[in-house]
């Protein structure tokens, strides 16, 4: 203990500060360690999730490409010279539903979506389409010049060509207003030429392409205004305007060009509101499946129920979506069933009945077989073989003789493409063009039949003939579809052959060879 209390106090304070500082450092280290651990944990958990891309749509479903066409409204066609108060409302509703339809498709599994603007952009990627469109515009400009110069006939020629080019470029679907301009001026030129009927048709086409088109009253002459009004009424009173606005064959053609599977289009039809004011305006949503060339969805929604639009569309699109996806079907043409089988190879026979010889007689040879399968399980077959019957070890058969065997019959087969087993029966005829001589007398063999020591020789003069029934088992093994190995074993029971039946009969034979199916 120090004698100086001041120094002791100072020492005590210094010690306390040191301890406090140490505690502070320890706490700081603990906090830093906790932060580091937390950070590491966050990195471990979050980074892989950030690095990994979202999993692509999986499953064995085909992707469906849906293209949404602009929503069209037919309001106010009763009077095409007045832009009624409902038109801005309809325009707004059309835009809202257009967006709603696109949203309803977005995010669904296996759906690739593109809108109307993208249709034009995709078409523009095709050079020939782009070039055709330019030509159409040039023709239209020329037609317009001729018409303004009161050369209606020349104008009509240019406008007709412009129409054809626009149709080639799919303007009726991708840019209908451009084609509507052409139709308008075709109608005007036709009217100038006094062709009222065709002019009416052209105006009708114009309104079909652009139902929202309106005109200033008095701008054209009365006859033209009358035709315009009539054409507008024609469109307004059509029972199924969507079929006219979006012809199926045109949708299919454009779908093939752009790789679109399904077209979605909306039609706001308020044409009969004036006639039946109590009917609420409705929008018709239709989906045209270019794969089946048919409408796969046709739903009507109340236009005014804006708050229900998302739910309505989701319900309808979900129902369609659940049925529209399909597994990729790979149409594998089943391989043609092989009906003909031709094989050839080695044949070997042993005469089981050989009274005139002490040993079995062996007969090596070759065979050719043909099998026809008219229906699975049934086999019609024919075969021929050539076999040489060799002398036995005792030379009891004095000379080799050759036989030709021809057989045909039917069989029952079981098995698959690789292995087929069949049980066969048929008739066989065999003949030999050589004399057959057999004896067990050794003196006959050495000194000849003329020798006085020869006790006797069995002899069948040529031609020898056998006729009998053939029974066999057959096996085809096809390691590949293009060829197979054939095996068979069987016997023949000869019933008709003169003396030979008792002397040589029941040849047990086997074959194996290589075959080709056809």
């Amino acid at each position, binding site marked *: 203990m120090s004698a100086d209390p001041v120094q002791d106090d100072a020492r005590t304070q210094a010690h306390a500060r040191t301890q406090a500082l140490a505690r502070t450092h320890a706490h700081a280290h603990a906090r830093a360690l906790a932060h580091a651990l937390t950070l590491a944990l966050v990195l471990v958990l979050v980074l892989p999730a950030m690095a990994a891309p979202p999993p692509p749509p999986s499953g064995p479903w085909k992707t469906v490409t849906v293209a949404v066409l602009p929503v069209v409204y037919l309001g106010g066609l009763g009077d095409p010279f007045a832009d009624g108060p409902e038109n801005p409302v309809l325009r707004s509703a059309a835009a809202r539903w257009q967006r709603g339809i696109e949203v309803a498709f977005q995010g669904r599994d296996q759906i690739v979506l593109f809108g109307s603007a993208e249709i034009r952009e995709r078409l523009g990627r095709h050079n020939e389409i782009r070039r055709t469109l330019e030509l159409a515009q040039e023709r239209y400009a020329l037609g317009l010049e001729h018409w303004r110069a009161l050369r209606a006939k020349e104008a009509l020629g240019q406008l007709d060509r412009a129409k054809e080019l626009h149709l080639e470029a799919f303007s009726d679907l991708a840019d209908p207003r451009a084609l509507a301009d052409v139709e308008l001026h075709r109608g005007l030129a036709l009217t100038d030429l006094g062709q009222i009927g065709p002019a009416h048709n052209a105006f009708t086409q114009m309104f079909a392409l652009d139902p929202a088109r309106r005109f200033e009253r008095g701008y054209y002459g009365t006859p033209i205004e009358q035709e315009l009004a009539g054409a507008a009424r024609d469109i307004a009173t059509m029972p199924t305007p969507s079929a006219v606005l979006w012809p199926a064959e045109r949708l299919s053609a454009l779908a093939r060009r752009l790789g679109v599977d399904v077209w979605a289009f909306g039609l706001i039809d308020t044409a009969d509101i004036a006639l039946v004011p109590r009917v609420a305006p409705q929008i018709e949503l239709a989906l045209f499946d270019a794969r089946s060339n048919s409408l796969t969805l046709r739903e009507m929604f109340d236009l005014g129920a804006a708050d229900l639009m998302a739910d309505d569309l989701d319900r309808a699109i979900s129902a369609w979506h659940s049925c529209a996806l399909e597994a990729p079907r790979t149409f594998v043409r089943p391989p043609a069933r092989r009906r003909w089988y031709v094989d050839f190879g080695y044949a070997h026979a042993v005469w089981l009945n050989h009274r005139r010889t*002490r*040993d079995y007689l062996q007969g090596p040879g070759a065979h050719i077989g043909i099998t026809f399968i008219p229906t699975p399980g049934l086999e019609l077959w024919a075969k021929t073989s050539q076999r040489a019957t060799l002398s*036995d*070890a*005792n*030379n*009891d058969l004095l000379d080799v003789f050759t036989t030709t065997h021809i057989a045909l019959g039917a069989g029952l087969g079981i098995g698959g493409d690789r292995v087929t087993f069949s049980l066969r029966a048929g008739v066989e005829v065999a003949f030999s063009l050589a004399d057959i001589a057999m004896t067990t007398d*050794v*003196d006959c*063999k*050495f*000194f*000849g039949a003329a*020798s006085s*020591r020869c006790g006797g020789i069995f002899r069948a003069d040529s031609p020898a003939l056998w006729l009998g029934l053939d029974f066999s088992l057959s096996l085809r093994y096809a390691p590949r579809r293009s060829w197979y190995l054939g095996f068979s074993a069987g016997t023949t029971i000869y019933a008709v052959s003169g003396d030979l039946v008792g002397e040589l009969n029941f040849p047990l034979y086997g074959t194996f060879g290589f075959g080709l199916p056809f």
Partner: protein
Amino acid sequence: MFGGMWESETTLDASWLSGRPQLAIGHFGPELTGIVRFRDEDLIPRPVCGCAYLDQVDVDLTNQRFIATNELCDTPPTVLIWDLTLEDQGADPRLVGEVRRANDDTSPAVMVSFRLDDRFVPDDRRELCDR
């Protein structure tokens, strides 16, 4: 095995048989037949016939041996017994053994050795000799 034309390698010189006999043998499986031919000057003591069949042939394939009798043309006929074994280890197959007279214990057996002349026996060598 035994089939073919066999020529005596040595000239037999016994009191009852001398000369160079020839064998024409047909061998088929377990059976054997053939002819023993004698030249006119061969047969001792007298040339009674030019050839004679091999009869009562007993073949032992395992030991490559056969025993056959041979009846000459004299009266009463002299019967010879041939006991021959095939030796085919060397380049030239040989039939070696003895021949003795049947029912005659006083005459000693004669040792014989035949060399294979040809495996093929021509037809004229199979024909019976003129007795």
